[in-house]
């Protein structure tokens, strides 16, 4: 219970600093610290159990289908890392309060920091590898935000992007690796996986899984050749560098290696890959660090080097090396965090981190200099400091490691690494703090406020304590952690200052002598080094990512050139190819269903349709003609519905066609009346072939289906329509009852379309539009804009049409009709008034707002559905009953009727709104006088001024 609160507390606590920054910087920092402190308290409350050898576990199912569970585990290793994350986190929070400038958004900083802290705790406490992956990616993302915290700086943005791409790419490999691991082990729970090491190592998938996991771990922990992102991540504020890029996040890869050590380590492949990568990283990182002039960059490469050291130890695969690795993680975290914070103080107080401009600071900022030099001594591995102890253990392990039969490789290179390490430590300490006092520092350096140096001092305490009394101070913790890494009995070892005259001591002495020499000749080596070409990782990375972006742009430009016809041709060609493939790869036999006889009227209608279609294809550039031909086709389709037992469809088709045609005519009024012929003959031929093949395919498919029998779920609807839905018109019952959800969604879509049309024909058109449209309007026009015959007929027909609409609506449940058709009929009757009397005349007299009708329609339909809840039924469950009234007799009332009323209102509103909006645009372009009375049109005079040319 307590366990999952530890990562969740910082994750959710991240909202506190974001909100409390309004109450001031101190409140904000205190709240952040309090969140971390609470998490630390929770962790420490578990300490007795962990030190007693218990493994604390909690598990909640999250997505059991993919074996993702919210399960956490706290053992020695998890405890060690979690404690490190929280304690260093607290120190960094205190430090950052004083480090951040007044102009920096501190709330955002602390929020990111807590998010990172929660994610990192999640990584080290997860007991489910998928959950671990989630937290792993979260650390990459929060690290991106923190590196790019100063987003006005280009180097910060670049560094953040590079870190995200490298660690995110590694994360991708890790996903594959961990999923493979889980499937080999048959479980995604880490505690299960660890117990099945032998099974995993024997699997043929072991090697691919291992390689993918290692890519993930190496990118995160900046191992060669992925080490280049870490120095660029130093563009982050110094507290971030100290926290993420020395103590915690970059250790996540190492943590993963340690966590999975019992499951993966100990094989030939493990040793052959991990150990040399670590060794190479150690030497290369230390080499580069010697030539850096920026303090933070120097420390970054030294971190790379130390991470390599730890990786190498884990890669050796022996238990003793694992103990050394754990011990060095602890030691490195203490002295390196202290060093980063010191570098931040130097930068903050002296105004520069460039060693060429520093020196002699020991007299000016004695506290900082003392603390930093103590930490440097530990990093160099000077006796009496904790760095010495773990370095000795490392050298001891390397001394008797033979790689592929070569016995000298590891001892020599490990000594070289230690030598180079001494070199850069000397450079860091001597060039910054010793030497003559200068007079040209950018700021006048002095010791910072206590809040900034106190965290450093607190980190130096363990550096010295462990160095002097290793067994007493760190013995229990190291034993506990190493025990969890190894997953078995510990080797025989003891942490002590003096082990006698061992090979390691000899190597150490050699390293110190060589390191001192190297420091003295550094300038000459540097000059020599500059003669050789050096690959600059950032340039290579930028070049690679630019090439990828360019290739993507070219591909997009080629595929998305803005031509609709091109896209459609591609889609069509692919569909046709798929259709042809499906057709030739399956056997075909003739259908067996008896065909209906061809009748003469059907043949005539078919011929008319063929002529209309062909004529449309050939003469479509005459847009008015194309429109008329289209409505001919629509009419024949409606006749087909009549012929084949679909009266509802025929009614709908005819009325929708009327509305569509009016709509297109209105639009055509404002559009060019002809399409220019632009396509060349071959292009038209190509389009004709594509269209012809597509049409042929659809026709054949339809024919194939119609000549075969099939089963359908229709029997259920036919059987249930009357007893279940209370209506005899099965189509209508399906619409308003069985599949009412579809219909409900459909009228919502219609409503949205109408609102979009309303917005698109907003009266604020660009100034040029009116002029352009006027130029298109026909120069000759009928003298009768509102012919009196039409006006009178339309007004007389309105009540009649409304009555027909009501009739169709009411009978819809049992006979052809219903809300859709009734809505269309009423809408047409209303539109006729617009046509006959003009937009203004109708708008002045209209009582019902179309938008309100749409809203009311959807509302009524929705409320009818919701009403079912009151009776404990699911949404849209319908009911009906029979009632008897005097005179009227017995009649049926169904709740579906109310739903259909919603459909009706929506349809009327949508149709009228769309057409009225369109005609309003025409009205604005070409205002006509508004007739006041039915017969008020003067027939003898021009009723509107001649148009400007």
């Amino acid at each position, binding site marked *: 219970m307590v366990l999952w609160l530890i990562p969740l507390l910082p994750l959710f606590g991240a909202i506190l600093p974001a909100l409390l920054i309004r109450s001031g910087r101190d409140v904000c920092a205190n709240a952040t610290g309090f969140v971390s402190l609470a998490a630390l308290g929770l962790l420490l409350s578990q300490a007795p159990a962990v030190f007693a050898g218990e493994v604390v576990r909690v598990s909640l199912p999250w997505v059991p289908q993919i074996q993702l569970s919210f399960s956490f585990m706290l053992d020695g290793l998890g405890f060690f890392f979690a404690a490190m994350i929280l304690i260093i986190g607290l120190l960094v929070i205190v430090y950052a309060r004083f480090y951040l400038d007044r102009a920096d958004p501190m709330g955002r900083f602390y929020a990111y920091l807590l998010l990172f802290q929660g994610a990192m705790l999640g990584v080290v406490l997860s007991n489910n590898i998928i959950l671990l992956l989630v937290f792993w990616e979260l650390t990459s993302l929060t690290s991106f935000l923190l590196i790019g915290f100063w987003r006005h700086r280009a180097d910060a943005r670049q560094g953040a992007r590079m870190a995200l791409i490298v660690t995110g790419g590694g994360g991708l490999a890790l996903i594959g690796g961990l999923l493979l691991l889980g499937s080999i082990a048959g479980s995604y729970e880490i505690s299960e996986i660890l117990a099945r090491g032998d099974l995993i190592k024997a699997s043929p998938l072991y090697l691919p899984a291992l390689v993918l996991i290692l890519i993930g771990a190496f990118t995160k922990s900046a191992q060669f050749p992925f080490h280049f992102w870490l120095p660029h991540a130093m563009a982050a504020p110094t507290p971030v560098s100290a926290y993420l890029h020395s103590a915690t996040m970059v250790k996540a890869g190492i943590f993963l290696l340690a966590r999975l050590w019992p499951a993966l380590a100990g094989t030939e492949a493990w040793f052959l890959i991990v150990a040399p990568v670590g060794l190479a990283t150690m030497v290369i990182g230390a080499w580069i660090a010697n030539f850096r002039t920026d303090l933070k960059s120097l420390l970054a490469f030294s971190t790379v080097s130390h991470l390599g050291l730890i990786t190498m130890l884990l890669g050796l695969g022996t238990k003793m090396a694992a103990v050394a690795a754990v011990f060095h993680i602890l030691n490195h975290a203490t002295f390196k965090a202290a060093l980063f914070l010191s570098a931040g103080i130097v930068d903050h107080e002296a105004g520069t981190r460039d060693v060429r401009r520093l020196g002699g600071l020991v007299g000016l900022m004695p506290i900082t200099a003392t603390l930093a030099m103590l930490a440097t001594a530990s990093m160099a591995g000077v006796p009496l400091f904790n760095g010495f102890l773990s370095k000795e253990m490392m050298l001891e392990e390397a001394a008797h490691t033979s790689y592929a039969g070569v016995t000298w490789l590891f001892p020599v290179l490990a000594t070289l690494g230690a030598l180079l390490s001494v070199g850069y430590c000397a450079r860091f300490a001597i060039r910054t703090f010793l030497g003559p006092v200068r007079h040209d520092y950018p700021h006048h350096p002095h010791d910072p406020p206590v809040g900034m140096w106190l965290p450093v001092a607190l980190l130096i305490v363990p550096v010295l304590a462990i160095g002097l009394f290793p067994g007493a101070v760190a013995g229990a913790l190291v034993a506990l952690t190493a025990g969890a890494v190894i997953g078995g009995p510990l080797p025989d070892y003891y942490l002590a200052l003096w082990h006698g005259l061992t090979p390691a001591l000899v190597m150490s002495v050699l390293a110190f002598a060589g390191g001192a020499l190297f420091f003295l000749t550094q300038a000459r080596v540097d000059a020599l080094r500059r003669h050789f070409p050096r690959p600059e990782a950032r340039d290579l990375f930028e070049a690679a990512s630019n090439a990828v972006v360019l290739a993507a742009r070219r591909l*997009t430009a*080629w595929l*998305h*050139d803005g*031509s609709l*016809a*091109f896209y459609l*041709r591609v889609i069509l060609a692919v569909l046709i190819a798929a259709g042809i493939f499906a057709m030739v790869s399956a056997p075909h036999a003739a259908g067996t269903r008896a*065909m209906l006889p*061809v009748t003469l009227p059907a043949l005539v209608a078919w011929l008319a349709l063929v002529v209309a*279609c*062909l004529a*449309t*294809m050939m003469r479509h*550039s005459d847009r008015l003609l194309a429109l008329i031909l*289209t409505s001919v086709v*629509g009419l024949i*389709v409606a006749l*087909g519905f009549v012929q*084949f*037992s*679909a009266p*509802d469809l025929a009614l*709908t088709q005819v009325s*929708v066609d009327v509305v*569509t045609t009016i*709509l297109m005519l209105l639009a055509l009024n404002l*559009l*060019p009346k002809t*399409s*220019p012929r*632009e*396509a060349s003959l071959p292009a038209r031929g190509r389009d004709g072939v*594509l*269209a*012809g093949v597509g*049409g042929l395919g*659809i026709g054949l498919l339809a*024919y194939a289906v*119609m000549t075969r029998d099939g089963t359908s779920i*229709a029997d259920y609807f*036919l059987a249930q*329509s009357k007893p279940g839905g209370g209506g005899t*018109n*099965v*189509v209508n019952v*399906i*619409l308003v009852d069985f599949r009412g959800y579809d*219909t409900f969604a*459909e009228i919502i879509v*219609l409503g949205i*379309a109408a609102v*979009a049309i309303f917005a*698109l*024909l907003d009266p604020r058109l660009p100034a*040029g*539009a009116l002029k*352009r449209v006027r130029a298109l309007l026909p120069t000759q026009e009928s003298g009768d804009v509102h012919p009196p015959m039409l006006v009178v007929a339309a007004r007389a027909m309105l009540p009649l049409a409304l009555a027909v609409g009501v009739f169709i609506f009411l009978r819809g449940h*049992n006979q052809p009709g219903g809300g*859709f058709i009734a809505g269309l009929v009423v809408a047409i009757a209303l539109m006729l008034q617009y046509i006959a009397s003009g937009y203004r005349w109708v708008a002045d007299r209209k009582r019902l707002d179309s938008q309100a009708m749409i809203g009311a329609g959807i509302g009524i339909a929705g409320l009818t559905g919701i009403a079912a809840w009151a009776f404990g039924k699911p949404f849209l469950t319908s009911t009906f009953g029979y009632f008897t009234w005097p005179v009227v007799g017995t009649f049926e009332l169904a709740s579906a009727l109310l739903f259909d009323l919603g459909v009706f209102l929506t349809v009327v509103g949508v149709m009228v709104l769309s057409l009225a909006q369109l005609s309003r645009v025409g009205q604005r372009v070409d205002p006509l006088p508004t007739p006041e009375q039915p017969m008020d049109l003067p027939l003898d005079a021009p009723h509107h001024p001649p148009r400007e040319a």
Partner: protein
Amino acid sequence: MEILVASAIGLMTATGLFLILQGRSFPVIVGLTFLSYAVNAFLFAMGRLTVDRPPIITAGAAYTDPLPQALVLTAIVISFGMTALIVVLGLRGFLETGSDRTDLSLANAAEEHGPAPAGEDSSRERGGAARA
């Protein structure tokens, strides 16, 4: 009869496809209307063709399949909504730019349908590099 219906569906599809490949918005809209007819008829034909058996429950009658009819009925109404929206979109596009081309790589303000109004430049030309 089936062959008449199937060939009609195929022909309407072909007409619709041919029209949507044209470079102007109006033929594309007409083409979409043709495609709607074809698709609706195709869906309807999936219930097989039956004469004189409407799905209205009466004693002792046989019926055609009502489900494709219900689906097509909503499809007809929805296709109206779609057509209306596209018509208006095309119209607005024309009013904004003076062009009703569906090829953005060719469209620009200077159209043959009318003089480009003052104050509009040719920066409306968008889209990627012309295809070779």
